[in-house]
């Protein structure tokens, strides 16, 4: 057989080049971050789906019941202004997490990060006596005398007040309970079922379909980004200018947009082919069991008890 292989392909890898000493790493750090985020999206979707498909007691509850509970609990959390009631609610939600057999440590770590930023740090200044008057329990700055400036009155002793702390703690617990209960529902309900439960408040099927498609494309897009990154990574080595990487990435982004448009058009064709005529009809899983009613009763009664404490 006549051999037409270019001569360089016949050389072995060792005989070609001596690799220069590695002085610095190839500049892919921002790409690495992008892919890390992208991979995290995929991972979290998988984890969510895996958790939701478990057949534990909380996962088995009808998604409609969970959706009603979510709205009900959001109301309870906002109307309860007593610290003991909020702490009781925190304990109740935690008990649900145990029943759902979720990775409590991992989930609560996320919840606490969110809550610490939005429910504590952001509102912490509100506990100062400059904003919330009251008895100072922890002084920060002590001036020689109080100051009056325009409509502002700066006291001699600036610090955290008891009332302020109570307000911040209440807000913190409200955010904590809201976030943890919402995540409990998200982690224990298959996403498609959860979306479909919006039907009970009259959200049209077409809108639900759009949300489902968007969710699906986040997944597909994340995978595309990941694959694109691996393809780039496998061919890039050494020192590459950032400007060149930017060119590559922008080219890929254009490609992804173009693919999205084609995908959108063809998905429309696929829908038309299966009878879509402008209005979507989805079925909803409205199969209620006795345990669903019991779960609903438990939630409602717990809410009432918490309000009455």
């Amino acid at each position, binding site marked *: 057989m006549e051999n037409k292989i270019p001569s360089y392909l016949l050389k072995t890898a060792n005989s070609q080049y001596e690799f220069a000493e590695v002085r610095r790493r190839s500049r892919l750090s921002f790409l690495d971050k992008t892919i890390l985020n992208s991979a995290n999206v995929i991972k979290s979707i998988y984890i969510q789906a895996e958790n939701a498909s478990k057949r534990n007691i909380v996962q088995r509850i009808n998604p409609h019941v969970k959706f009603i509970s979510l709205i009900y609990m959001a109301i309870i959390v906002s109307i309860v202004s007593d610290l003991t009631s909020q702490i009781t609610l925190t304990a109740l939600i935690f008990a649900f997490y145990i029943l759902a057999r979720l990775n409590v440590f991992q989930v609560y770590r996320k919840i606490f990060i969110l809550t610490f930023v939005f429910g504590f740090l952001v509102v912490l200044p509100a506990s100062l006596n400059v904003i919330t008057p009251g008895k100072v329990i922890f002084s920060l700055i002590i001036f020689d005398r109080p100051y009056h400036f325009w409509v502002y009155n700066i006291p001699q002793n600036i610090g955290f007040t008891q009332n302020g702390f109570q307000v911040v703690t209440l807000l913190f617990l409200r955010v904590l309970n809201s976030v943890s209960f919402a995540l409990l529902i998200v982690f224990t309900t*298959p996403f498609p*079922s959860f979306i479909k439960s919006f039907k009970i408040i009259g959200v049209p099927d077409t809108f639900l379909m759009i949300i*489902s498609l968007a969710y699906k494309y986040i997944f597909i897009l994340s995978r595309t980004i990941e694959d694109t990154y691996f393809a780039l990574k496998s061919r890039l080595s050494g020192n590459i200018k950032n400007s060149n990487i930017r060119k590559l990435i922008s080219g890929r982004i254009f490609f992804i947009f173009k693919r999205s448009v084609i995908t959108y058009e*063809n998905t429309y064709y696929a*829908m038309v*082919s*299966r*009878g879509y*005529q402008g209005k979507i009809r*989805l079925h909803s899983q409205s199969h209620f069991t006795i345990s669903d009613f019991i779960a609903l009763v438990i939630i409602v009664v717990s809410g009432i008890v918490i309000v009455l404490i």
Partner: protein
Amino acid sequence: MEEIISLRNIEYSYYGKIPALKNINLSVKKGEMFSIIGLNGSGKSTLLHIINALIFPDSGNVMFDGNIITEKSLRDKNSGMQFRQRMSYIFQNLDIQLFCPTVFDELLFGPLQLNIPLVEAKERAEQTLSYLSIGYLKERPVYMLSGGEKKRVAIASVLTMNPEVLLVDEPLSSLDPKTQTFFIELLLELNDAGKTIIFTTHQLDLIEHLQPRVAVLSDDHTIRKTGSVSEILEDKELLISVNLIHEHIHKHGNEEHKHYHSHYVFHKH
């Protein structure tokens, strides 16, 4: 056999500039297995789009069961619905084909759009899940399926509409050998059950397996020949001219062979 699909003098171009199909004339009979073969870019998928009335030709007529299908005729809700119920299309790209939240939703989508009562739709869906041995996927989100599973769900999603005609674009693309065998047997079974099946492919071994009537699309977007599998595969000049066969080398042990790439006629083993 009675004619169910007929295409007369079809011309189609992209953006009015890039020709995709030229002077296409085809006729498919009820219950027939029909294949459109050709290279990538020859216009096979576009032709299926036109047959399924997803796009409309620049000129020429598409007839379905004796009626001319036009954009206007499908605007009538009943005619449109009837047409969609009678003819289904399995796309090559399964991420496009599967757009519902879960597998069960996919199976119910078609029947529900066609106003089939929910109880009957669910019954069909359950039976189809069981028929294709994918009951375990029922509540799975579609983006979490493997390639083979997606293919099974895709065919299940159109079978629940109980179509008379099944259009399949590249049936075996990206499938492992086991799923390929499953799909070939399924197509044969459905054809035996009376379904008209039209599929596109560039794999000559697939038409050897399924023995359909074949139309050959050439690079210039015209149909070069229509005939039985043996008539097509024995026409060496035709297959070379449309680039469906080419000289290639392969080995038997240490012995090398060089011949045209069609085991059907040129290299029987």
